[in-house]
């Protein structure tokens, strides 16, 4: 499998995996291993005495994977910037998955606040991976600010609906051919991930589709295979679609040839 770049670092696994919602820590660990992902998402929340946060962090560290902290749940530029700064100290990385929610109902990112926060964080030395909608102009503005990676949604977080607007995603790919594009959120099936890779996306980031499956470890393997299939398909370049059938078996020498 060929590699793709995230701010200059090369990765071959085209599946970024989340660490939330698994039925148990051991299932989380096994699912992450089965995915063969190289990047795992994490977050920060209030420290609670009853929560075994240390154990979770130790499990993640044991995977040896690159961590991508997020600003999930933030609703303002100030909150997102502060949380990103806190993530940088705790996780010792300048990567941040910038999540800035604009609508509580469908968890749609706020494009205006996202641009503002991105500008502040890039100026502060962060490598910003913005979670955004599939709006071409928003993606272009984020790219203009200096984002090397863009993460448009496939569908709202946790819905499992797949790619709601393949045309928009395709257009973003065509207009930003040199940026790393990752479909983030909304996937439910491995075929959704395959479709994203077939569109030329460099990778997918997902969590619920694996963690919420009946057997997360098996689903993790399915997604691993799906992104590989999608990438190979994109590299191989699909045949042109046609409206009229054409036989694949040679007609020359056909017995019982229709004479009329």
């Amino acid at each position, binding site marked *: 499998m060929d590699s793709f770049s995230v701010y200059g670092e090369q990765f071959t696994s085209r599946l970024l995996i*989340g*660490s*939330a*919602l*698994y039925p148990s820590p051991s299932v*989380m660990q096994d699912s992450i291993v089965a995915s063969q992902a190289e990047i795992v*998402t*994490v*977050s*920060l*929340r*209030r*420290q*609670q*005495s009853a*929560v075994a*946060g*240390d154990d*979770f*962090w130790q499990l*993640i560290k044991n995977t040896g994977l690159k961590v991508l*902290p*997020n600003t*999930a749940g933030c609703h303002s530029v*100030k*909150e997102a910037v*502060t*949380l990103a*700064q*806190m*993530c940088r*100290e*705790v*996780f010792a990385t300048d990567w941040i998955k910038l999540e800035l929610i604009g609508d509580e109902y469908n968890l749609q990112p706020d494009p205006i606040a996202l641009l503002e926060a991105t500008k502040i964080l890039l100026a502060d030395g962060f490598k910003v991976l913005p979670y955004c909608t599939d709006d071409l102009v928003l993606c272009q503005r984020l790219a203009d600010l200096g984002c090397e990676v863009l993460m448009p949604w496939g569908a709202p*977080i946790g819905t499992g609906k797949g790619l709601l607007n393949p045309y928009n995603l395709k257009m973003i790919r065509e207009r930003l051919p040199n940026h790393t594009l990752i479909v983030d959120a909304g996937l439910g099936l491995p075929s959704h991930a395959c479709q994203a890779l077939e569109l030329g996306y460099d990778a997918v980031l997902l*969590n*619920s589709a694996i963690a919420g499956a009946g057997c997360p470890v098996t689903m993790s393997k399915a997604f691993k295979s799906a992104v590989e299939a999608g990438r190979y398909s994109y590299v191989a370049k699909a045949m042109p679609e046609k409206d009229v059938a054409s036989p694949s078996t040679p007609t020359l020498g056909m017995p019982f040839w229709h004479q009329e």
Partner: protein
Amino acid sequence: MNILINGQSVTVSENTSLTQALSQFGARPPFAVAVNGDFVPRSQCDAKTLNEGDSIELLSPIQGG
């Protein structure tokens, strides 16, 4: 004086530093802190003196998507 740590009211002495307040609260690393919405780097926690009503966020790693 009273301050808030993760939304809980905590009574500390006047001129308590952020480091002292976190220790009194029983904060366990790894964590990062913010006071009144502003991040305070670990290196500045000793020098950061708290005031009545300050609100501290004490955050630690957790699962994320």
